[in-house]
Every structure is written in C-alpha cells, then in structure tokens.
C-alpha cells in the first residue's frame, strides 16, 4: 500500500525514531526473525527499560518500535477498545517519538498493537498484529522450573498441559479456560496466545497477517507467521469451544462479535456491548 508520510504529526526532537536506538532495534529484529522462522518458539531478547511500567505492554511496545517505519499506520487497542488509557497513551507515545500516522480503523492500520484481543475485522496480508504478553510460558503454574519447561518444549512433551484440561473437565464438566487457552502452533510448539479470550483463538489459525508476541518482563518474543496452523488444545470427545456471551450488542446489534458486560447502575442494570469499539462504530455507520 502506498501511504504518504504523515505531514501533520511532528516527531519529538531529541529522540531516535520510534524511541529505541538502532542497535537495540536490530537486536529485537533478529529475535523476531528467529521467532518467525520457528513458529511458536519463545526467543529470548534483551528487553529494555521503557517509559511505562511492566505489565502495561513493554514487550509489545518494543516489538512495535522495532518494526515501525515512517510510512506505517498504527492502531493500538486495549481489550478491543481504542479509547482506554493504555491504548491512548501508547498511541500518543508513537505519534510523538516516531511521528507516524495513527488510526482507530483496523482496515487502515499496517500495525495493530493489541492487549488481550484480536480485532473482529478480518486482518489481511501485509498487516502485523503485535500482542502484549504478560507470561509467555504456557506451562507456567504446571512446571515451576524454567530449565524443565525448556526441556519439555524441546522434546514436545506436552502431556502435562493435557492433564490440566483433564482436571478442568473432571471439576467443571468442561474446559474452564475462558482466556489464554493454550494452542499448538504448526503442530510443534505449545504456545500461550496471551490472555485473549478463547473466542479469539480460532482467528489465529491460518491468519493472513503476521502475529508477533512480545513479553517485556519475561524477555521473550515469539511469532505466528502468516498462514500458520494454530490449534487450540482439546480432547476428541470434548472439542474446543469458543465462549461468547449469548446476547446481541446493545449498540450495534451484532450477534457475531465478542461482548463485554457493562454494569450501568447499582440496581443490577447491565448491558452487553462489543468489546471491539472500531467494529461496533463501523457497524453503526460512524
């Protein structure tokens, strides 16, 4: 796509383009290339201090800074919304330190940095989806030793994760992970999809866009290249089921999108609205 450099936004003086210095970007790009070459495998990288706290997206922001070019159009979402604190501040950050054009529209963006959602609008080839990841290790909580989880990944020994699903069915009658449901990437590596709702898991499968995952505190990058098989773990007789609230969006009437439940008063009033604000606005013709 031929997008002109944004003539309006001005880059902040005194900073390198997109905040990180070029040597750091190169190191991160190397990690990204390796991650793309080995889909689902966690590649260590030297995460830098960023001007926001751990847990607010330091991993995602470093990945975005490394792949951002002056012609890119950036969209940032937090739980699907463009207008929450985290999304607004990261978008403004890149607007200032890189001078890139930003947008709310999924269609217009070349890079979408996301926390905990995949946009409802289908992504296309050439787009990059950057996930903010709090805990990259899917076997975390099941196996406390990092050395041992590394070995389990190397040997493809994922019986342990299956045991967790087994225990869920025994206790709850179904797999109870509503978010961060583990996936197998390219039939080889077990991967944490970051805490996206299990509703979004099927969208990762054979997605035409490049999906990059950055974990700043844990210093790991991993990737799902375009058109890669991503299967959610399940049992043959208890197949994976994406979970969605059985309602229509109170604003746009969508029965397809993932819904947030919003409490409207203290009398028990509530409404269900699309978690993806851009998708909802577009449907309402805004």
């Amino acid at each position: 796509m031929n997008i002109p450099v944004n003539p309006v936004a001005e880059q902040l003086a005194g900073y390198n383009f997109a905040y990180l210095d070029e040597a750091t970007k190169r190191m991160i790009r190397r990690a990204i290339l390796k991650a793309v070459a080995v889909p689902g495998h966690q590649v260590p990288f030297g995460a830098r201090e960023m001007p926001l706290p751990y847990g607010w997206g330091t991993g995602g922001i470093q990945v975005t800074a490394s792949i951002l070019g002056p012609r890119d159009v950036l969209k940032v979402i937090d739980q699907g919304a463009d207008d929450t604190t985290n999304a607004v501040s990261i978008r403004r950050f890149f607007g200032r330190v890189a001078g890139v054009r930003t947008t709310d529209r999924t269609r217009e963006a070349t890079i979408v940095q996301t926390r905990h959602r995949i946009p409802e609008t289908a992504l296309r080839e050439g787009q990059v989806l950057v996930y903010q990841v709090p805990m990259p290790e899917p076997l975390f909580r099941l196996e406390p030793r990092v050395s041992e989880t590394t070995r389990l990944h190397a040997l493809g020994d994922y019986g342990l994760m299956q045991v967790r699903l087994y225990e869920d069915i025994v206790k709850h009658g179904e797999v109870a992970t509503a978010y961060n449901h583990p996936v197998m990437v390219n039939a080889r590596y077990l991967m944490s999809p970051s805490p996206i709702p299990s509703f979004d898991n099927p969208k990762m499968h054979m997605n035409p866009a490049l999906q990059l995952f950055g974990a700043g505190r844990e210093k790991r990058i991993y990737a799902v290249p375009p058109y890669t098989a991503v299967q959610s773990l399940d049992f043959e007789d208890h197949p994976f089921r994406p979970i969605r609230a059985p309602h229509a969006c109170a604003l746009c009437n969508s029965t397809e999108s993932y819904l947030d439940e919003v409490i409207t008063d203290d009398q028990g009033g509530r409404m269900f609205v699309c978690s993806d604000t851009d998708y909802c606005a577009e449907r309402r013709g805004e």
Partner: protein
Amino acid sequence: MNPLLEARGLNLRFGAVDALLDVSLDLYPGEVVGIVGESGSGKSSLLKVLAGMQGADGGCVTYTDAVGTDHDVLNISDAARRRLMRSEWGFVHQNARDALRMNVSAGGNVGERLMAAGARHFGKIREEAAHWLGRVEIDASRMDDLPRTFSGGMQQRLQIARTLVTRPRLVFMDEPTGGLDVSVQAKLLDLIRSLVADLGLAVLLVTHDIAAARLLSHRIVVMRHGRIVEEGLTDRVLDDPQHPYTQLLVSSVLAA
C-alpha cells in the same frame, strides 16, 4: 532368549567411594530380579545407572526394546530416554510423593502417562484409569480425589497403577514397600506379585527387605561395597548362602 537388559563392567565412583565396581547383570523378559544389600552397598546407584538416570564412569548398559532395537542406555539421548520411560519402562519410587502429582486427581495421575503417550480421548482415558485403579484395589469413587487425601499404602498403589497403565515391559522398583506398616506391606507385595505374574513384567527390585525379595523375585543379586558378591536363584541364595556376607544378611532377618 536374549536378555532385555544387559549390563557389563559398570563402574561408578563418588569421590573416594566406589559406588559400583565391575558390576555385570542380565535381566530376561518376564523375570524378577531382586537386588539386596545393606544401605550404601550401591544397589540404588545400580538401579539409577541401569535406568539411565545416572551416568557411569565405565561399562555399558544395553536395552533391547519391543521391536528388537538395542539402546545404549548410558549414551542415550534425553528424548529417546524419555520415550523409553513413557512407553517401555516404569519406575516405582520408594516415596509415592516423588512420583505422583499431589495437586492432580488420582484419575489424572493415572491418565497423565496415557496423555503423554498421545491419548486424546477423555472418555477412554477415564475408562482406562478407572480400570487400573480397580486393579490396584482403589475404589472408583476415589477417582477424582487428590492423592494427598489417600493413605500411604493407597498412594503407593496409585503410583503402581500410574506406572503400569502404559503396559511397560520393564519396571524398576526402588524399595516399593519402604515406609509402610507390615500388614499394608504384605497386601502390597501380594498385589505386586499378582500384577507382575499377570502382565509378564520384567522387574528390577531394589530392597533391603529379604522377605520381600524372597516373595517377589526369581533371582537375587547380593551387593556389598559396590560389588556383586553373590547371585543365583532366590531359594538357593537365601537357603544356602555361600558368601559370608550373604550368610550374615540372611541370619540377621528376624523371625516373627
């Protein structure tokens, strides 16, 4: 018949201490061999070396798998060793807590080995787990309970069910009756004996309990200071011990 497991000239030193000195041993399919000796005689070290859990300073161990391929156990890759451990071998620890996942239900514990071996059908995994819990005399109603709510004897039986569920050909047992009271021990020995006979398992049994060794093993190997001092058929070794140390060992068993 070719041996299942063949060890030749094993040596192992821990600093100045010889844990194993020129130890050779054959184990044939369906055979139960008891390794007896006092604490520190090297019997547990031998078991660990034979199972590939511990390297050796010299010698070799060869395991012949179900399709007839020989594996050099001491130089095996981590991946191949785990594959053997998952499919062809089993290991019963003295302390059931070392082997069980205490925060996973009994059924999950038994099913884990099936799932590790690739089973992905919830109903079938459960059925198989229930079957094995039944075989080790754990009531089906306890299937979804955590092992920490089980008695010591039950935990040990659960560990055996978990080990046998993938139908191994060779089971290593390290003091399986240790730490249990006498009546529970007797029941457990009885259970192990019938399972071993039913399934035609080959077992390497490490124990300091001469009575347990007599009950379970076909052959006995007596170890002292890292050497095998005497070996032979169980009744022959225990009723007519030749080596002075074996004589001492047999005569120190208390008659009830």
